[in-house]
């Protein structure tokens, strides 16, 4: 047989996988030619009249035309998949088969239609979910952050804080510590009902930096204080850092880094498990950077806090700008808080929109504080 088979025939004496055969549609019915078992053998043919055939749809996806009839050798089933044969069969089929044929075709169409509908719905749902997550992730993160109790945040921050301080030269008392404490008290006093008890430590180091950990743990390096010309400048940095804590920016970052799974697990419960996940993912609170939106938020709320605490907010802006101009690349605080002209402009615009600040001086002398840090008095402007 040279023409390849185009159908599968099943019958009692055939193997269960069926026998490939060649189907010809003729005026009176079908001629089915079976290939011979051997290459030299004769192929044999069967003729089936349309009058004995019943039709239906079948196969895995109900997309094959199934013909059944009882021949001389018992029941026969023929599976047609070849579109050309199916078309020829439909054209040649007599009146009494057109109804079941139409029903079978209808069934195939229904199955295809249902597949299409289901997959369209699933696809659309998936796209909607992805889009929703993409644009709604901030909302989700905020939701998750709201679920985390402050005590847990404090535990997280405290362990990182203690770990960090263990390897540092902590300044326990002296004018610098007193000055930083006074600044913090004035700022924190303007945040009523704050769940955070701020703890500020001065660390002796030339690093020009200050940072706040979740839960209200703040570290100020003496290097930053040496660089400041006035206490208002240090207070500006403190106000900015305190607001990272108050707005729970650290937690938002952690949750964003942990990803969606963590968000879901927090929204649905089980926050204590997060610490383990953080450890696994190697998230380090010390090296964590805040996002641009978070910096802007901390800037603006920090400015407002300074204003309420009656500390001149100009110091914040000028200090940021001066740090950016002077020691580019050497000031650590800027590596985690990149300064841009847009950021300074934004702060200036915010300040201009506020009524004239009524600044009250601090109780300490900045010159004394600086002298205590070892800055020669000649350097004081």
């Amino acid at each position, binding site marked *: 047989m040279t023409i390849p088979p185009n159908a599968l025939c*099943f019958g009692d004496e055939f193997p*269960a996988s069926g026998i490939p055969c060649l189907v010809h549609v003729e005026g009176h019915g079908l001629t089915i030619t079976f290939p011979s078992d051997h290459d030299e053998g004769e192929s044999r043919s069967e003729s089936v009249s349309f009058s004995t055939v019943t039709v239906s749809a*079948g*196969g895995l996806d109900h997309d*094959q035309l199934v013909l059944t009839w009882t021949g001389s050798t018992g029941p026969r089933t023929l599976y047609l998949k070849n579109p050309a044969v199916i078309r020829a069969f439909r054209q040649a089929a007599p009146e009494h088969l057109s109804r079941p044929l139409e029903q079978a075709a209808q069934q195939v169409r229904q199955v295809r239609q249902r*597949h299409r509908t289901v997959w369209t719905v699933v696809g659309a749902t998936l796209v909607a979910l992805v889009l929703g997550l993409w644009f709604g992730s901030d909302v989700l993160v905020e939701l998750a952050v709201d679920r985390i109790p402050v005590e847990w945040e404090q535990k997280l921050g405290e362990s990182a804080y203690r770990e960090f301080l263990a390897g540092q030269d902590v300044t326990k008392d002296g004018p610098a510590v007193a000055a930083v404490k006074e600044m913090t008290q004035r700022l924190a006093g303007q945040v009523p009902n704050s769940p955070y008890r701020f703890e500020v430590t001065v660390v002796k180091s030339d690093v020009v930096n200050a940072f706040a950990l979740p839960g209200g743990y703040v570290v100020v390096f003496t290097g930053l204080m040496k660089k400041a010309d006035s206490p208002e400048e240090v207070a500006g940095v403190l106000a900015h850092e305190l607001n990272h804590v108050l707005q729970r920016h650290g937690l938002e970052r952690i949750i964003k880094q942990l990803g969606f799974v963590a968000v879901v697990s927090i929204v649905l419960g089980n926050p204590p498990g997060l610490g383990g996940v953080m450890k696994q993912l190697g998230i380090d609170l010390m090296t964590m950077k805040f996002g641009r939106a978070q910096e802007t938020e901390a800037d603006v709320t920090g400015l407002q806090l300074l204003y309420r605490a009656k500390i001149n907010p100009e110091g914040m802006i000028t200090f940021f700008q001066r740090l950016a101009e002077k020691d580019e690349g050497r000031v650590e605080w800027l590596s985690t808080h990149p300064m841009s002209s847009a950021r300074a402009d934004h702060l200036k615009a915010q300040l201009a929109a506020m009524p004239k600040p009524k600044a009250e001086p601090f109780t300490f002398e900045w010159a004394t504080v600086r002298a205590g840090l070892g800055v020669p008095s000649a350097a004081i402007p």
Partner: protein
Amino acid sequence: MKSEILYPGAFPMVRIELAEGEKIKAESGAMVACSPTIDIESKMEGGFLGALSRKFLTGEKFFFQTLRASRGAGEVLLASTVPGEVVILELDGVNEYMVQKDGFLAGADGVTIDSQMQSMTRGLLGGEGFFLLKMSGKGMLVLNSFGAIHKIELKPGQEYIVDNSHLVAWSSTTSYNIEKATSGWVASFTSGEGFVCRFRGPGLVFIQSRNPGGFGAWVRQFIPVSE
């Protein structure tokens, strides 16, 4: 092309003799040994997008390897990763098989591999995923299983019930429905069967005597949990 199964049983190998110029495709990593006349090429069957869709949709490997007897006749030895039997089928251009994602070991060059989408209920509950490999075309097809492979022959209209995680391959002339194993929902799961597939002939259904997922769960309890 001649093929034979060596060491039938749990750890079989398939030897395929290739005449000069003949080639076969195999699951990547399936080649155990071959004659020096055979060239091994890595090929993205069905083009880049086809390979990509197969990788992501069925979990099959991105690349298949092509073994070509380019410098004269030779033989290749193939084996699968898991212990289990191997079966060789012959596709004649009319019969087609649906193969679950891990079932394919090798095929003649004339065998076409497509990924085919299943209906929603079968995809969700069948345990085979939404996409299966559809083998059509002409030539030899080698399937592998986890455990022994068992062939179920179904006459037209004959039905048989198979636990869904034991499926390897089935002809496209069969149809199947997903059902609860018992009449009640709770009993369905406490019986350990969950969902089952009710196959309806005509056609062949190949099943494996071991359930890979179940085996994995069993092994997991012996693996020490590390911090």
